[in-house]
């Protein structure tokens, strides 16, 4: 990202101003220009922001590494005892084939099933979304303007409207209790946005590159595959991640379309951990932090792509 240059001198202005005014302007320059909080106020805001973002995570993390007794102490213990038994309780299921008996036993199967679902959703989005985005960005054909707009508009349709037909149709087809039913349902809410974003992304790549490739003897398809697609890699990364995150974090479809314990997905699995009566808050915190780990790590690593990719789409919106 390009940063603002604060010390960019307003020379042109100064030259035309009376000396007294110009002097005042120069004197004030270090205090920067409007709409920037600076000095102590800015640091106060930044501190608040850090607290606002991190405190909830800290509270959850804190209870996840406390013993059960500590987590149930009144008033709360503010420092952890570094007890990792909650994590080992959840992760021990990796090596166990015994049938699940508690809600915590379902976390690992949930993570495994959701990994399959989310990767499948991301891959289909990438393959079909990228080619369609290219078509809408480059080719002239009836519908090249209207269809992407309709796809953007579809983002305003709440997924609740789709859940009833999906529930009915998938049950008639015998596809409830299958991860693939959820994959299909998630494609419906991710794909239109993917096409829109990819189109925006391809439109930012100069059309001269296509021309040059064609003149050098590429067919349309090889120009797309060999020249444009590699250039669009940041866009592809952001839509792939985006689709993965939506699939991983989905609760609505996952809980309505899957009722079989074998096929449980990650969000319903961690939702099952909230059990005020059992008071197993440590397990709840550890399980949900583990379940959030993949999206958190991916988002941290690729923060830049995510924001830029979304902004590219937003600017056209």
């Amino acid at each position: 990202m390009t940063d603002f240059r604060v010390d960019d001198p307003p020379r042109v202005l100064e030259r035309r101003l009376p000396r007294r005014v110009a002097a005042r302007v120069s004197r004030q320059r270090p205090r920067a220009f409007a709409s920037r909080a600076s000095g102590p106020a800015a640091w106060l805001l930044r501190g608040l922001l850090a607290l606002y973002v991190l405190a909830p995570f800290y509270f959850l993390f804190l209870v996840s590494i406390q013993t059960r007794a500590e987590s149930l102490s009144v008033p709360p213990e503010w420092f952890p005892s570094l007890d990792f038994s909650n994590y080992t309780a959840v992760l021990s299921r990796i090596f166990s084939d015994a049938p699940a008996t508690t809600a915590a036993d379902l976390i690992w199967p949930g993570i495994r099933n959701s990994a399959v679902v989310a990767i499948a959703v991301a891959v289909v989005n990438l393959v079909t979304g990228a080619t369609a985005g290219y078509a809408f960005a480059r080719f002239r054909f009836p519908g090249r303007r209207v269809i992407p707009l309709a796809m953007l508009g579809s983002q305003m349709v709440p997924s609740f409207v789709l859940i009833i037909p999906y529930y009915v149709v998938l049950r008639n087809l015998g596809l409830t209790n299958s991860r693939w039913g959820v994959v299909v349902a998630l494609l419906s809410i991710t794909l239109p946005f993917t096409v829109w974003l990819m189109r925006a992304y391809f439109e930012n790549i100069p059309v001269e590159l296509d021309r040059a490739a064609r003149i050098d003897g590429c067919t349309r398809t090889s120009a797309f595959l060999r020249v444009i697609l590699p250039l669009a890699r940041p866009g592809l990364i952001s839509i792939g991640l985006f689709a993965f995150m939506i699939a991983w974090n989905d609760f609505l479809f996952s809980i309505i379309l899957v009722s079989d314990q074998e096929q449980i997905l990650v969000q319903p699995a961690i939702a099952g951990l909230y059990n005020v009566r059992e008071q197993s808050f440590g397990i709840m915190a550890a399980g949900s932090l583990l379940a959030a780990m993949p999206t958190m790590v991916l988002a941290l690593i690729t923060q830049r792509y995510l924001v830029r990719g979304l902004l590219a789409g937003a600017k056209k919106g």
Partner: protein
Amino acid sequence: MVDDNTALNRRRAGARLPWTNNEAPEWLTAYAYALPALGLTILLFAYPLAHSLWMSLHSVDLAGRLQDFVGLDNYVTVLTDDLFLPALWRTVRFSLAIIVGTVLLSIMFALSLNDPFPGRAVFRSIMILPWSVSQVMLALTFGWIFNSTYGPLNGLLLEWGLVTDYRSWFADGTTVLNILSFAVAWNLVPFATLLFTGALQTVPDDLHKAARIDGAGAVARFLYVTLPAIKDTVLVVIVLATLNAFLTFAPIMILTGGGPGSDTTLLSWWGYEVGFRKFRLGEAAAIFYLMTVVLAAIAIATVIVLGRRPQDAQT
């Protein structure tokens, strides 16, 4: 910058890419490229959307089979239900709280991140974290923080002497709704802040300088220079916040079940209850369609009010 290419490309879109005679016509190739995504979208999105509308006009049995065509009966049943108006009003109030809170907080935070300072990159990275977690995680996190017996918030308040007795946060409907809107806003604000920091960098410095020379104070400069320049992002954030507010579901299901009483029964939760607890699928489809209409109305109103540009008004 990349954006300049867009305009160029748009202008040149009239000029065809060179092509030779042994290639298929351009429109055919185009449809071949677009077909997988287009076909999937029609099959998986447009068809269910139409099917849902069709269902809302029928009486539907427990298994989801369509019975008789009843016209708008399902809508009449829903609209005259005692729960409808309160649920709608609650949803609108809930959304407004989230929208206003998100826009104000994120602009404020974005301004504080606008100047370079040590640690800025780290800040920007951690800001993506709340946005990357699911609604379920939100529910669990805030359910724990506000837990009335063991939760850290009551502990902190007591330790700082702000309360003398533990408060049970989930007993009062209004408080619960506030907690839920705070949770949703927590999810949105850091992400919106990132969008605003991006937008603030496009505000022309010269305009600020000129405004200063004209004697504009900090507030006036924000209102007349910064705000118009980031208006598009404000629009995006409002639409994003509205959508997220309307789609709030997991926290209600996990934490409140629509209660106490029906104090946290938003449209989304009400539709779910009617459809998947009482299995009145036709009415549920009607509720969700009404929800879509309200959402679309808000989005269109936002775009009309904020989307107008000064130059549009002149031409």
